[in-house]
């Protein structure tokens, strides 16, 4: 059976358009510290989708960072959806910025695929770039915002082809070429054959590592993949591979494994009195979604596409298809319903902020009396297997969110994570790096971070983190390590300062340890830490009951600038405290404390 002929409309970088930035402004939309969309100006400065925020800011310092808000994107996209819904029924939406519909009926009505594509393109032009002379045209959202869309993030593209993937690729091409792309019936395979494999990731959502594997196995373009025999592909790559092959050969109709749902699963809410308030409607919709997901789960199914139909008292109705290849959970479903109802409630009037039905200028003119969720495509719920080890848990997400929020609150440099970098001194072995620089919160964590057994890429060349580091103090390590050592005085029985000779001989057994009231500035100035840090200071003179040392370290004697010669001691005092102290250039320092 030939795959269905689809029209795909795609607005590139829709989040940026929805954020409402000015033309010529560099904008990046950020989600979880990563760029999800960027404006043309930012792209020209080197900002790429998937970059870290900091990286994007370093490429383009004046970039305006906007938080990702799917609800805002959906609201803004509703104008486009409404305009196209005037021409075509049953639009299918995946994400804000992309919509699809079957070409079969509308194509005949408008006189062929080419005419249909031109018609849709004209409508998009009218919605997104109205001529300045006619601001009050019906169906026009905020004209100032719409006019920017083209310059801000590129032109929306319309693509018609057999199969979903081919139509999406055609829409991308249309967006670049500036005119709709219509692929002839049966021509999807030859259209795709010459394209690079990365389109599978860009337009088809195939994981990048799988595409990388295909490329490493010698497949250069989509045609190579389509030319493989299906049994070979399923033997080597399993179902995901078959799906990729179907995409590449232009015959992917619907996600693999999906089927028409059994009859009688639609859930309907009939309201006795028309509901005007959006919030109460969304609340009801949530319960509907819960019922639908529950009913499907009982049969071991998950819904990948469903229709939402809302009807008002006056007979107006709004129907949209929503699809998600991974399957809808209850929250995702409720969110889609909210987007649709929210957009409808605002009506086609000029961007009114109404959240009541019947207030806006255009449709709908009264409250909702009927809300129906109808699954149109389901598949067996094989579930999502989370990794047993090393997967991301909810705690990880929470922690990442908190770290991002803290960085926004007090500054990037003050939220730190530890990184192993090796060294003999206590303060050298680990250092604190700002969390945004580190890979802790990356979706694909590098296992080498902070693992002493591997070298860290961030180290300067020639500095090996995984050395054995002889001369380190043996474990247990002190729990309190002063980032800046505190000057102290260590006296022997006669009241003289204890010294260590060049050969590592102690002048006399240390007897008293006391804070240096007036630290001699023999050393380069080091700022002392605030006194209230816990258990930090040698408060008063204390008697040393046991001690060991000196353990002399002569580090980097070949480098005059970084040469250090330090003798370390451990002291146990009468008050029960254990200290790690060091003497360097005849000045005693309190390095750490077993607190």
């Amino acid at each position, binding site marked *: 059976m030939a795959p269905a002929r689809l029209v795909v409309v795609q607005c590139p970088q829709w989040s940026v358009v929805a954020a409402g930035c000015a033309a010529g402004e560099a904008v990046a939309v950020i989600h979880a510290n990563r760029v999800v969309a960027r404006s043309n100006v930012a792209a020209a400065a080197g900002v790429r989708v998937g970059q870290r925020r900091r990286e994007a800011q370093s490429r383009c310092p004046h970039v305006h960072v906007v938080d990702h808000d799917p609800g805002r994107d959906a609201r803004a996209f509703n104008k486009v959806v409404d305009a196209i819904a005037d021409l075509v029924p049953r639009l299918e939406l995946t994400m804000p910025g992309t919509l699809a519909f079957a070409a079969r009926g509308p194509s005949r009505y408008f006189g062929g695929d080419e005419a249909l594509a031109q018609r849709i393109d004209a409508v998009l032009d009218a919605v997104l770039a109205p001529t300045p002379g006619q601001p009050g045209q019906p169906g026009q959202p905020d004209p100032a915002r719409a006019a920017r869309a083209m310059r801000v993030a590129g032109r929306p593209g319309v693509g018609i082809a057999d199969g979903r993937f081919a139509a999406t690729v055609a829409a991308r091409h249309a967006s670049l070429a500036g005119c709709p792309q219509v692929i002839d019936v049966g021509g999807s395979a030859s259209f795709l054959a010459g394209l690079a494999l990365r389109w599978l990731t860009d337009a088809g959502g195939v994981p990048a590592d799988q595409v990388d594997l295909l490329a490493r196995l010698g497949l250069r373009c989509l045609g190579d993949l389509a030319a493989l025999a299906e049994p070979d592909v399923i033997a080597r790559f399993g179902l995901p591979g078959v799906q990729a092959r179907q995409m590449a050969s232009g015959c992917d109709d619907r996600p693999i494994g999906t089927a028409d749902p059994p009859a009688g699963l639609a859930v309907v809410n009939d309201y006795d009195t028309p509901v005007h308030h959006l919030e109460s409607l969304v609340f009801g919709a949530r319960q509907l979604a819960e019922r639908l997901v529950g009913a499907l789960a009982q049969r071991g199914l998950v819904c990948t596409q469903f229709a939402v139909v809302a009807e008002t008292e006056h007979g107006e109705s709004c129907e949209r298809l929503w699809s998600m290849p991974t399957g809808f959970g209850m929250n995702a479903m409720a969110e889609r319903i909210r987007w649709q109802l929210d957009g409808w409630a605002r009506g086609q009037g000029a961007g009114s902020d109404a959240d009541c039905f019947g207030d806006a200028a255009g449709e709908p003119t009264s409250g909702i009396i009927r809300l129906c969720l109808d699954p149109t495509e389901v598949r067996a719920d094989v579930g999502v297997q989370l990794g047993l080890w090393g997967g991301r848990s909810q705690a990880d997400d929470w922690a990442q969110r908190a770290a991002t929020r803290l960085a926004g609150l007090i500054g990037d440099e003050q*939220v730190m994570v530890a990184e192993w970098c090796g060294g003999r001194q206590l303060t050298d072995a680990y250092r604190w790096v700002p969390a945004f620089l580190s890979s*802790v919160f990356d979706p694909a964590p590098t296992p080498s971070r902070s693992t002493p057994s591997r070298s860290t890429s961030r180290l300067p060349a020639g500095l090996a983190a995984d050395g054995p580091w002889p001369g380190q103090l043996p474990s247990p390590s002190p*729990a309190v390590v002063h980032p800046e050592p505190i000057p102290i005085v260590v006296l022997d029985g006669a009241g003289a300062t204890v010294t260590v000779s060049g050969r590592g001989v102690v002048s006399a057994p240390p007897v008293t340890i006391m804070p240096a009231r007036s630290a001699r500035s023999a050393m380069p100035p080091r700022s002392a830490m605030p006194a209230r840090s816990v*258990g930090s200071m040698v408060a008063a003179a204390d008697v040393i009951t046991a001690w060991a040392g000196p353990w002399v370290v002569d580090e980097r004697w070949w480098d005059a600038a970084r040469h250090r010669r330090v003798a370390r001691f451990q002291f146990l005092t009468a008050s029960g405290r*254990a200290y790690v102290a060091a003497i360097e250039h005849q000045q005693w320092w309190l390095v750490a404390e077993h607190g």
Partner: protein
Amino acid sequence: MEPVPGTGVPRTGARAGWTVRNPSAPDRLSALVARVSPGAMAAERTLAVHPGLTTLFPEGLARGATVLCAGGAATSMATLLSAGAVGGGAWVGVAGLPTFGVQACREAGVPSERVVLVREQPTTPFDDGTWGQVLGALIDGFEIVIFGAAVSLRAGTARRLQARLQTRGAVLVVVGDAGPFACDQRLAGVAEWGGLGDGHGHLATRQVHLTLDGRRQQRPRHDTIWYPSPTGAIVPVGLVGAVAPVDERVASLQRTG
């Protein structure tokens, strides 16, 4: 080599004088399941504690509680308190402790990649309002929050934070001075070091005499733990003869087939 009962694995590391307790395979599995289960539900209102602290916290660490760590080993004990929860997938937020030692934290069983530290600049210390926001964010995101600058908070902020702690189900570990916080439990330790002589040896073992006092407790609980023991383990002193160190029980790989 005689096999360990129930596992078929040859016993390798049983030292003379050690009574190696060999939990049967189902026991081990159920212990493992409990460890790798994806975090405790908020309904199970406790977090796991390190095996060394089970005598003091038999039910685990109550979520929403504020625990004060005082005495000679306050920072170490705060780290050890978080070790059990981190094993179950929790994250630790550390604030107001610029001197937090990472190596000691790893030795207590808390992987450093699960620790996020908030450090104020020495020149611009945080005021009460900033601490309130910072701790609020930490409590929202981390299951264990270790805080060492309680004295710089006002009573109202502390009350608000503790209310948030209850809702979120995190545990606040205050190190040193409780300041305005109303602590549910107070863990005080006195450290007794071994291994250091008069000019020789090095700090090798520590016995911490712990006292746990709580508002819901009739009388204080006492326990003494090795932190670390001569073999490097963290165990209650009473148990040191009964449990072999973990690495001793790992059977070496054998070539089969």
